[in-house]
C-alpha cells in the first residue's frame, strides 16, 4: 500500500522529540557512576535528601487536610461570584515559584502582613526555617491537589449526597462515608501530584526559606549549589531527584 509520507510533519516532530530526549541521555552520561556511593553518602547530601522527603511529605499531608475540604467547598459553591473565588484559589498555580516565595516572604517575613504582628507578640520568625520550607512547598503544590479533587467531586453525581441525606445522614457523615470513598482515587492522584511538585520545589523555597544546610537546604537547592563546585555530584543528585519524581508519578 502506498502512503504519501508527511515529511513536513515528521522532521519537526523528530527534532522536538530529540530536544526533549537528549538532555535525559546527557544527564545519564554525566552521572559519575563509580563515585555514586561516595557522593550519595556525604553528610550534607543525606541531610538535604532527608529534609526534602520530610518537607514534601508534610506538604502533601497539609494539602490533604486543608485542600480536600477546600475542593469540596469549591465544588459545592453556588453563590454569585463563585467563579472569582475559584480563580483566586488557582492563582498560585500560574504564579511563578519565585513570585510565590516573594509573596510568602512579604506576608510571613518580619515586616510582613502576618509576620510583623506575629514577631512582636511571640518573637517567632518564620522565614529561613524548616517550617518555611514546608509552607513554600504547600503553597505551590496545594492548588494541584485542589484542582484534581475538585474535578473528581464535580464528576460525581451531586444527587449522591442528596440520596445519603434522604437516608438520614448529616452532611459530614455523607462526606465521610459516601463522597470521600467515591473520590478516593482522585485524592490519591492529587496527593501524589502534590508530593512530586513539593519534592522538586526550588524557586519559592530559595526565596522564602533560603539555603541553610541542615535547616532549609533541600535536594534541589543542594543540586544548584553543587553545579559550580562539583558538576558531577550535581548530576548524581539530579538523577536521585528525577528517579524519585518518576516513581511518584508511577512511570
Amino acid at each position, binding site marked *: 500500500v502506498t502512503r504519501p509520507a508527511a515529511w513536513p510533519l515528521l522532521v519537526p516532530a523528530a527534532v522536538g522529540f530529540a530536544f526533549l530526549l537528549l538532555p535525559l541521555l546527557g544527564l545519564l552520561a554525566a552521572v559519575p557512576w563509580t563515585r555514586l556511593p561516595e557522593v550519595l553518602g556525604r553528610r550534607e547530601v543525606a541531610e538535604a535528601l532527608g529534609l526534602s522527603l520530610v518537607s514534601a511529605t508534610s506538604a502533601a499531608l497539609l494539602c490533604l487536610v486543608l485542600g480536600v475540604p477546600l475542593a469540596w467547598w469549591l465544588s459545592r459553591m453556588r453563590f454569585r461570584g463563585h467563579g472569582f473565588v475559584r480563580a483566586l484559589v488557582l492563582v498560585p498555580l500560574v504564579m511563578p515559584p519565585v513570585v510565590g516565595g516573594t509573596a510568602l516572604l512579604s506576608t510571613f517575613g518580619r515586616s510582613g502582613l502576618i509576620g510583623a504582628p506575629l514577631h512582636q507578640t511571640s518573637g517567632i520568625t518564620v522565614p529561613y526555617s524548616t517550617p518555611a520550607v514546608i509552607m513554600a512547598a504547600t503553597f505551590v503544590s496545594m492548588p494541584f491537589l485542589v484542582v484534581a479533587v475538585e474535578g473528581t467531586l464535580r464528576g460525581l453525581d451531586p444527587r449522591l449526597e442528596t440520596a445519603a441525606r434522604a437516608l*438520614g445522614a448529616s452532611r459530614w457523615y455523607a462526606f465521610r462515608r459516601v463522597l470521600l470513598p467515591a473520590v478516593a482515587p482522585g485524592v490519591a492522584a492529587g496527593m501524589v501530584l502534590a508530593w512530586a511538585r513539593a519534592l522538586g520545589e526550588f524557586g519559592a523555597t530559595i526565596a522564602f526559606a533560603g539555603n541553610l544546610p541542615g535547616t532549609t537546604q533541600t535536594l534541589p537547592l543542594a543540586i544548584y549549589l553543587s553545579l559550580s563546585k562539583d558538576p558531577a555530584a550535581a548530576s548524581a543528585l539530579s538523577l536521585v531527584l528525577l528517579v524519585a519524581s518518576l516513581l511518584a508519578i508511577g512511570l
Partner: protein
Amino acid sequence: MNAQAPRPQHRSGTPGATLRPGDLRLDGVIGRGGFRLPLTMDFRAGETLVLLGANGAGKSTLLETLGGLIPLLEGELLRIGSDGATVLSGPRGTVPAERRRAGFVHQDYLLFPRMTALENVAFGLRARGVGKKEAHASAAAQLRRLGLTEAQAGSRPGALSGGQRQRVALARALAGEPDMLLLDVPLAALDAGTRAQARAQVYAQLREFPGPRVLVTHDLTDALSLGDRIAVLDQGTLAQIDSPAEITRTPRTPYLAELLGINLFSGLARRGRLSIGHSRVTAPTELDGRVLVTLPREAVTVNTEAPAKAGRNTFEARVVAVQEDAQGITVAVSPTDPDVGLACSARVPLTSLPTAPIRLGAPVWATVDESALHAYPF
C-alpha cells in the same frame, strides 16, 4: 358511537373523604427555581398514586417536596397520625429529609458506588446510629426478602445487573421502615427485556407497603399497571386524577392522548348529533353540551389518491408530520379547508411503506371512521 360515558369519580385531588392515620395531605404551592405549581392532593396509606407527566411538569419537584429535600413554597404538608396531624412542611419550617422517614428510590437508583449492596442497604440505619452488626443483619434480611443472593449482597453496584440494582435500591428505601415510599421513575433505567419482570416485582413490593406510595413516571405502561390512582401533571396544573381504567377511557389532556396514541378533540353535542370544532365530521350521540371526543389513530385512513366516491367523513388534507418507528409510521394531517376536515393523526403499518411513500407537505385524502369516535362530558 358509544353511549354516554360514566362521569369520573375522582375529578379533584382532594375528595371530601376523611383522612386516616398514615395519610398525607398537601395543600400549598410546590416549586423550585422560577417554577411554581399550586396543588391540593391527598396521599392515602396503602394506595399507590402515580404522578404522570412530561419532563418539567413538576413530578420530581413534588416527590422531593414530600421527602423534605426541598421546602414547600406556601401552604402546608400534613401527616396524619393516630393522635392528630403533624406538620411536615409549613410556614413555621420543614422537617428535614434526614428526620422525615421517607423511603426514596431515586432515578438511576443513586446507589453508593464504593459500598457493597449490603452496605448500601444498611447505610440509612448506620447513619441514624444503629450498630454495624444489627444494621447489617437487618439489611441482609431485606435483601433476601427481595430475592438477592448472599453473593449479590456482597457485590458492589457496578457488578450487578440493572434489575438487581433496582432491587437493591428498593431494599435501601424499605430498610429504614419509612412512613412513605417515594419512587422516581424506578423502571426507566432498565432495558425493554427485563422491564416487565421488574415491574411485577415492584408491584408486589408496593402492595405490601402500608404507607402512602408515590411513583413518578413518564411511561404509560408503568402508570397503568402500577397505579391505584394516576395524577396527570400537564401545563402547570394537576390536569386529571383518576383510576387507570378512566385514564385510558376518558383522557382529558392532549399530553395523555399523545401517550395513549389517540386523537383528542373538544366538541359539542346537540339534538342527538356530535360536531367537532368547525368540521363537518359528525356522529350520532346521546350526550348534550360540551364534550371531549377520542378517535384512535388506526381509525383514520390516509390515501395519496382521491377516493372513487367521497364519503361524508372524507376530506382533503396536507401531511404536516411523519414519524417513523419500528412498526410503522404515524402521519399527522391538517385539512385543506378547516371547515370540512379535522387536524388529526393516522397510523400506517410498515407493510405499506415501500410502495406508497407519504411525504411531508404532500396532498392526501383522509377518511375518519365515525363509529370509532368516543364522546364523554367535558
